[in-house]
């Protein structure tokens, strides 16, 4: 794919935290409507990649570029990136006691998609549809953001936000962890509905290939010690599931 057509372009990204270099030169391109997966073991730099794309203030970028739709993300703060169209589904979503889910969703939609989208009937319709498809009860709206949520509820709530915020790029960090098989299917359907047949793209970060069976990524990348050591089609995920990461290390 030509660089100018890419939705997300990451070039030579070196980044770390507290002086420790974790990403040692990442190159990645995601086109509109594409879903890519990054797989790798613990400590390979998967979550760092997600945090650096979203703009976590604790991570330092030494060099490289991260471009979304022609805009330089590295120049922006996290909330500006969100408004530019980046979404991160967190591995560990944070609780905010006292902040009601319904209010929070409306405020977030208003911040990111504009006041029009957060208005009464339009918002309510979007919300009902998304909640129904994710099997989330109405009572959810009166609860406090991630406060006392089970692991599965937290992940469903992340995908609910994805569906309402309609980002250009969704980064999903370990969204399958903490979900049972039905949960993975429901959440995968949500991701497919948000990305497939749209101009958006997604980057799925995962340990396991299970979620990928439902999503069927266009490309799979393997991250090892801060660099992408192998890229391929969905078959790469299957191979990793069967054979582990050993064979890649030997190559």
């Amino acid at each position, binding site marked *: 794919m030509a660089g100018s057509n890419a939705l997300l372009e990451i070039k030579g990204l070196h980044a770390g935290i507290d002086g420790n270099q974790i990403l040692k030169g990442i190159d990645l391109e995601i086109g509109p409507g594409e879903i890519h997966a990054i797989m790798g073991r613990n400590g390979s730099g998967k979550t760092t990649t997600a945090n650096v794309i979203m703009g976590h203030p604790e991570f330092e970028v030494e060099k490289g570029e991260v471009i979304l739709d022609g805009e330089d993300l590295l120049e922006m703060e996290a909330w500006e990136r969100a408004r530019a169209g980046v979404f991160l589904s967190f591995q560990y979503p944070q609780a905010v006691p006292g902040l009601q889910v319904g209010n*929070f969703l409306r405020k977030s939609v208003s911040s*990111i998609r504009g006041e029009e989208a957060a208005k009464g009937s339009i918002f309510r319709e979007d919300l009902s549809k998304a909640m129904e498809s994710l099997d989330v009860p109405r009572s959810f709206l009166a609860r406090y*953001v991630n406060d006392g949520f089970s692991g599965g509820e937290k992940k469903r709530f992340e995908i609910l936000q994805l569906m309402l915020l309609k980002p250009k790029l969704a980064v999903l960090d370990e969204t399958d962890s903490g979900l049972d098989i039905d949960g993975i299917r429901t959440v995968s359907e949500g991701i497919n509905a948000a990305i497939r047949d749209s101009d958006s793209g997604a980057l799925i970060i995962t340990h396991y290939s299970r979620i990928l069976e439902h999503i069927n990524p266009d490309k799979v990348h393997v991250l090892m010690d801060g660099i992408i050591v192998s890229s391929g089609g969905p078959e790469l995920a299957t191979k990793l599931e069967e054979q582990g990461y050993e064979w890649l290390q030997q190559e």
Partner: protein
Amino acid sequence: MVENKEAREAVGDYKAGWHDPENSTIRFDFGLSEEVVREISSLKNEPAWMTEIRVKAFHHFMERPMPNWGNTSMLEEIDFDKICYYLRSSDATEKNWEDVPEDIRNTFDKLGIPEAEQKWLSGVTAQYESEAVYHSIRGDLEEQGVIFLDMDSGLREYPEIVKKWFCSVVPLTDNKFSALNTAVWSGGSFIYVPKGIKVEMPVQAYFRINAKNMGQFERTLIIADEGSSIHYVEGCTAPTYSTDSLHSAVVELIALPGAHIRYSTVQNWSSNVYNLVTKRGIAHENATIEWVDGNIGSKLTMKYPAVILKGEGSHAEVISVAYSGEGQHQDAGAKIHHLASNTTSKILSKSISKNGGRGSYRGMVTVSPKAENCKLNVVCDALILDESSRSDTYPTMEVSNPTARCEHEASVSKVSDEQLFYLMSRGHSEEEALAMIVNGFFEPFTRELPMEYAVELNQLMALEMEGSIG
């Protein structure tokens, strides 16, 4: 961030920080003496017994030393000779909005009172300087026999009721500042709810200090007769001045058997005001008293809403929040005395400190030896927004009956970077994210308030959070 800076400059450091030119009919010279106290009483044409109470209270105030606890160094800074003890800006108490003098009306316009009235109020008494200038009560309340007057009118029109209950909950020798209030009080609300009458809508009063160095000493007395109920809402906001002002109110509540009184306050004094208030209620058999108390501004607040559970089966609740910014100390809490059996109480206290502010919870719960099967629950949470701020807790429980069930929880938390990042990743600036966390922290309090107060408080906290980052 530029837009926030501009917004801040446009709004000023303090949202309600305007003041109208003083337009006072009678104003005393600064300082206090027995003569001044007698003069206040005589100007108001009070009965002799009230004059005597005032004079006794004045002498007690003079003899009583400053409290030797709390923020003593801030207390020592109060110069009682530089305070004006009585000031009246309008001759008569008005009943119709149109009759209220224009500059005073402008002030209330800025505070949003008329709109508020349409939606929420069943009666308004708004304290401007020392006396209520505007007071209205809905016809149906009058028909029900509910008395809702400013305290001065209450004394004139219902002297026998006032005489019976005045100083019955807070005796004139209670503490230095309540003695001062008793000596020089002016304005405040007087409410009597007859037997069995349930007032559905909250009744509301607004207080503010307008004149520089103006002490405000309002006195409120609420009597809910058997089986009645009332929700009283008091909101305070004051303009900013460079010299210190003293606000020392006394509120007395009497809930007779089976009655229910809820008293809600949101105070937003400017950061030079000393807010030293005595609030106390007595709950008789099966009565309930609830204090919902929010302290946002002031230099030093010392306030511990109290309930004496005198009758069997009575219940007390105190929900309070305090916000302390730069140079501010909120020393707030609650006091509950279980004197009778099967009484229950709940205290929820939440404090936020920022920019070197200090929040203290000071609470006392006692259970007397004869009070069987009492239940008490105390929760205090503090949220500290930066390293320079401070929170402390001084809880006291004196339980003299072994059948009591006591629960106490306390927590201190900080806003985590991960929490902020999570909210920012949803398109909210750092200030907005912080305001969401702060308003969430206060939510158990805010949800108890009438809607417009809740909205106002959320906006106020969002304003406070601007510029607090970095």
